[in-house]
């Protein structure tokens, strides 16, 4: 088959994956069109180089999937600039990232953002996302544009003066905890390192990790318990307080099917991290 024929044969898969990525990451109609074009150009570029390089070491659909995800990462970097969603937003999925982007980066109010989600994406917030919004409103929008002569009248949307001190302490603690986790993780076998990143940093449910890494689910629970013990021991040695270790190791997980839907019944998620005792540092991450 010619390169062009290969491309045409792969096009339905490319379009299907692209559509899924657009839906998952809540791209607007304009953004989705733009991204779709970028993906097609990427596959057409340099005389179909991407498909010509394909050696069959994985299925074509998976290869296309991986390539589209990579193109999306570039597209998102282009879209977001230097801004990145917080770890907490990433844990909660693309809807949380979108909320955070509009509130923190663009200075929208929580109400405006919720309305935009409802109208443009037909998303009603669940308890989990509402708790996340509460956390964001505590931080306040980073900027608000008003005419200069009205600026004097506008009360500061920012938090109280001592809030920054508390936040700085939280930030420092969060960095310390994550650095200790990183050090403890380095002593683990390769696949366990990935399990730690997925489960403890990104809150991926064990069932999803088992599917992703092709591991049996039941023994994986035991493995995760063992990892917890060794991480706890290593972090205690690093001087991290028990409550902070608990907040990290017992943080809630979110099943992928839930974040993909964008709505959550709450049935598969555990209590929100920011509601837990000792989890204060998480709110600033």
């Amino acid at each position, binding site marked *: 088959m010619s390169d062009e024929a290969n491309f045409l044969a792969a096009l339905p898969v490319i379009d299907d994956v692209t559509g899924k990525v657009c839906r998952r990451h809540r791209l607007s109609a304009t953004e989705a069109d733009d991204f779709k074009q970028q993906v097609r150009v990427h596959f057409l570029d340099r005389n179909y180089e991407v498909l010509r390089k394909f050696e069959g070491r994985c299925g074509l659909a998976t290869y296309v999937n991986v390539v589209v*995800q990579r193109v999306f990462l570039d597209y998102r970097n282009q879209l977001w600039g230097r801004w990145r969603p917080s770890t907490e937003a990433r844990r909660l999925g693309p809807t949380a990232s979108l909320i955070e982007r509009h509130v923190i980066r663009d200075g929208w109010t929580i109400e405006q953002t919720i309305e935009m989600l409802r109208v443009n994406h037909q998303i009603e917030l669940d308890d989990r996302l509402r708790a996340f919004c509460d956390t964001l409103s505590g931080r306040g929008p980073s900027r608000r544009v008003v005419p200069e002569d009205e600026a004097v009248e506008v009360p500061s949307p920012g938090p109280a003066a001592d809030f920054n001190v508390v936040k700085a302490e939280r930030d420092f603690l969060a960095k310390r905890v994550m650095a200790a986790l990183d050090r403890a993780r380095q002593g683990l076998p*390769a696949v366990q390192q990935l399990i730690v990143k997925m489960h403890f940093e990104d809150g991926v449910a064990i069932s999803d990790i088992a*599917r992703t890494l092709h591991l049996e689910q039941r023994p994986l629970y035991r493995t995760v318990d063992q990892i917890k013990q060794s991480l706890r021991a290593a972090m205690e040695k690093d001087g991290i307080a028990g409550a902070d270790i608990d907040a990290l190791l017992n943080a809630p997980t979110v099943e992928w099917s839930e974040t993909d839907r964008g709505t959550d019944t709450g049935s598969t998620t555990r209590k929100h991290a920011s509601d837990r005792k000792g989890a204060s540092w998480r709110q600033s991450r």
Partner: protein
Amino acid sequence: MAAEPMKLNGGTCPSLETIGAFVEDRLKERERDVIAEHVATCETCYFVFTEAARARATATPQGEVVAFTPRRVPWKMVMSGLAAAAMIVLAVNVWGPFGAGNDERALTELVAAVGTTRTFEPRLTGGFAYAPVRGPVRGPNDAVSLSPDVRIKIAEIEKTHPTAPVAATAALIAGDHDRAISLLDAAARSNPNDAKLLSDLAAAYLVKAERSNSAADASNALAAANRALEIERLMPEAMFNRALALQLSGLNEDARNAWEAFLTIDDRSGWADDARARLRILSNQP
């Protein structure tokens, strides 16, 4: 080498197809570990991997995902009784009368006895610890510079596993590269798909090439390392030996690329420091 590294964000990441193979669990155990370790530390690859895996997991019915396990090879199930018997005969001939389990135990004990005594540049399989090379070592009398523990272990292996691959490892450590080559060559002919044997054969040829300044042996080492990497693309020992063979053959540009490729799978260990030191030397050469 089949696994083309791809430059991303100034660093070197596995190719997207390798990530695809990781998503589908098509990599061998060692490759899988290498990629898992990389993915756990590289935000870009982590994003691509988790998003691709998530899209795949949420798109495929769970039953199919669980049932599809390519690493559990079906050829074992279809192998006839005759073929199985032939394999057993082959295994007995190759691994000696004590079986592969004992062979592995002997190798583990040898690795423990050797510890951080490294007497040559090439890298053996079996989990030998990194250590700087201990001075110039020449000729078969090198065994005298080994500790009594190592010498006892080598003698035991020669007695109990005279024709097994572990005997080749022992012979190489004892300084008898010719015997190591002969044993490994025979074993590799019987097991042409054993990447470890081929990588060790490359190491044995390299030791010989270094000591006798022989271009032919360096070339044999390169061929053996290449064959090992055809079987196991990301085998660190074979990648290390291949880079060494290229350098010894005077193929500086290829050697530079090979060391850089090695550093993509290992940038932390002492072996990586060795690789970086060699890269520095090569970068000062035309």
